[in-house]
């Protein structure tokens, strides 16, 4: 049996029509006919291996879904992520690679079908193992092991493009028509641009991929830490060299003026203003993070002070008591009052950290000290605000460094 090229390409054409943003990636695949691959599979060099028997047996509309499924493995870099996961967790052997292939299929399949693409029978879904939808391959990998439940899935084989393990029927890096890593990145970039250019067309999973493809999210703890550290070290506080006093070594080098290392611990004031939409656990972890960073830079417990606004006092008081952080009374119901009060304290703080959910007016003038805003991301809250009323929360001011805190 020879490969029915017309059927295969008709399926690709249909896939391009219903998923126009994937056109570049679908067209970039090079088709290789192979009798040893069970269905369709991709390798890490963007070649697509096709079994003629499978093409003959499947209707065009299902083949279109398989096209999109295979290209999703490549766009989402499942081979690179699989390799990294294996290296990090010391996983070896074909069983682990099968697990990766299944987890990668879970990540893709929850939003591949529908909207003009038919769902083939026996498609692999997280529901089969009673796992939630909408998670990433790495999350799924932590949640299941091969066992009786996965017996039905051992035939899954999407090639090295899905799990990073080279198969014997693949052409390998030396073969013709492969894409280099740079060319793969260029294709990914064009697809991501197509998705962000017309976000209405793409599903939520694809939009999330497009946002993060070239800017992987960084943990908010690291970002908040960097923001506070750079704010505390920039204003002359912290450890620094100074000519204000001569160094003790100066006595041994007459005529040469040496600076001495001075230490002025920075003072950090934390203003907290959140409504009920931020959970106590989230607020608590953010506050403790700020306090521990403040102490790491300052070295003393009493240099971090906290001003809760009324609504949050209930959570903040016990936390601060347990950690030994001084509390400066209630800051009023409005964040601006709390902010003004923080600036009035003596000695003045070097850095003010505001933890807020953004449902509040911001101070209008830039203060003399540096400001870091920890903004609790509230996607749903923001939307309902704009729908129910004309009121749209303001963006934080330009002069503050904003770190978005998501759970």
């Amino acid at each position, binding site marked *: 049996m020879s490969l029915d090229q017309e059927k295969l390409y008709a399926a690709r054409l249909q896939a391009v029509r219903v998923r126009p943003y994937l056109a570049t990636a679908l067209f970039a695949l090079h088709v290789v006919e192979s009798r040893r691959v069970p269905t369709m599979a991709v390798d890490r060099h963007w070649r697509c291996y096709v079994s003629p028997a499978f093409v003959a047996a499947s209707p065009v509309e299902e083949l279109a879904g398989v096209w999109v499924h295979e290209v999703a493995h490549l766009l989402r870099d499942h081979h690179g992520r699989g390799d990294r996961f294996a290296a990090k967790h010391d996983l070896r052997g074909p069983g682990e690679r099968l697990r990766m292939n299944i987890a990668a299929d879970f990540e893709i399949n929850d939003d591949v079908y529908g909207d003009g693409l038919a769902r083939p029978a026996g498609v692999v879904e997280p529901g089969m193992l009673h796992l939630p939808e909408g998670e990433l391959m790495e999350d799924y990998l932590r949640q299941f092991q091969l066992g009786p439940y996965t017996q039905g899935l051992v035939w899954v084989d999407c090639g090295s493009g899905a799990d990073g393990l080279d198969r014997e029927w693949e052409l390998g890096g030396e073969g013709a028509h492969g*894409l280099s890593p740079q060319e793969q990145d260029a294709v990914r970039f064009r697809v991501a641009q197509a998705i962000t250019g017309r976000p209405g067309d793409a599903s939520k999973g694809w939009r999330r991929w497009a946002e993060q493809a070239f800017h992987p999210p960084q943990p908010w703890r690291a970002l908040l830490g960097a923001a506070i550290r750079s704010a505390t070290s920039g204003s002359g506080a912290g450890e620094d060299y100074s000519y204000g006093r001569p160094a003790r070594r100066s006595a041994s080098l007459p005529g040469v003026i040496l600076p001495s290392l001075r230490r002025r611990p920075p003072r950090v004031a934390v203003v907290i203003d959140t409504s009920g939409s931020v959970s106590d656990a989230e607020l608590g972890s953010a506050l403790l993070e700020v306090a521990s960073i403040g102490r790491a830079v300052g070295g003393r417990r009493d240099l971090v002070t906290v001003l809760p606004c009324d609504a949050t006092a209930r959570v903040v008081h016990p936390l601060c008591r347990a950690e030994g952080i001084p509390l400066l009374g209630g800051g009023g119901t409005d964040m601006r009052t709390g902010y003004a009060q923080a600036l009035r304290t003596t000695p003045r703080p070097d850095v003010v950290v505001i933890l807020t959910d953004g449902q509040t007016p911001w101070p209008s003038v830039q203060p003399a000290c540096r400001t870091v805003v920890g903004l609790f991301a509230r996607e749903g809250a923001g939307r309902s605000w704009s729908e129910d009323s004309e009121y749209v929360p303001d963006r934080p001011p330009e002069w503050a460094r904003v770190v978005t805190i998501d759970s």
Partner: protein
Amino acid sequence: MPFAAPSLRLDVAADLLTLLRDTTTEPRSDLQLEALTLAVAADLPVLLWGEPGIGKTAALQQLATALDLPLTTVIASVHEPSDFSGLPVVGDDPAVQGVPMAPPDWAVRLVRAGRGLLFLDELSTAPPAVQAALLRLVLERRVGALKLPPGVRIVAAANPRSSAADGWELSPPLANRFVHLQWIHDHDVVVRGLGGTWPRAALPELDPGLLPEAVAFARRAVCGFLTVRPALVHQLPTNEPRRGGPWPSPRSWEMALSLTAFATAAGTSREVLSMLVRGTVGDGPGLELLAYLDRMDLPDPEALLADPAAAELPERGDLRQIVLDGVVEAVRKRPDRHRWDAAWALLVRALETGAPDLVVVPASTLAALREEDWDVPAAIDRLAGAVALSRRADRAGARAVAAAGSGR
């Protein structure tokens, strides 16, 4: 006697050490090192970002040997700011003579040698004042009262924010002046190296015959790209995760231009150029420039229309799609009978040499451009395959929609 005399024990240890250090090298392409070599050759300050202990210093040593430059390593975190800005030395009459800023000995030696590779290690763990003094050295190439000669090349290294104990980040103006290179270790190289065989990178060499061509190519590429994307000329990083990284500005585009010229003259791969350009103007603009370069390699639609019989269409489907779309767009802009026929000939050629689904959209667009008195060319019969394909896809789409409608 089973043991050597005490005085000889260290000699035996020395023998063992000699055996351990006896390693061989093998040629192996190393993209990171190629990128670093090109950036150093282009006389741009490079900043290597990498976890501690993954061989940044070893790479620098290899580079210094290859370029035949003496390597001076300065560990920033153990120095004081005066080591870079100069020590004020009070002379006989400060009011008349001023207070000279005495440079440290390594700077004096570098200036005396006239050439060298200055490696500023551990940039991210130095106190802020030291960093401030260091960056003046990088930007103005001044140490105290001394100015470093042009033969001195500067490379700095820093640990990324996630691994540095004291997270420090570059301010946007400083980040803009560096070529940022991410340094990662290769698992295979490490294992093989510990087994006794380290890689020896074949470093890129500039081809003297290609220089004028390379400059012309780089200018055409960067200028052409920025004409199409004026918004990318200057874009300050706004959100928190992108701080401290490269971003596009006229200065960094100039750096990208010279890196493109160097990569072209050295004939290095697009991979290396991609690392360099993305490390200079940022990921997004860098990738867009690379995509533009790829398009410059594609055949010109006008040339294809002028001689469709000799046309060579690219093999890769996505590139072929761009070319065919470009041809149809060219006909749409300046429609005339002859060009329309030539475009049909090109489509037939594309159908005969590659995947048929690529031809469907350009063919229907081209058919819509037909004017009343133009006869349908004879070649159109040969596109019947594409039409059948399109109908088949239509039917499949209808079936999928119907199935979804009945199933739910």
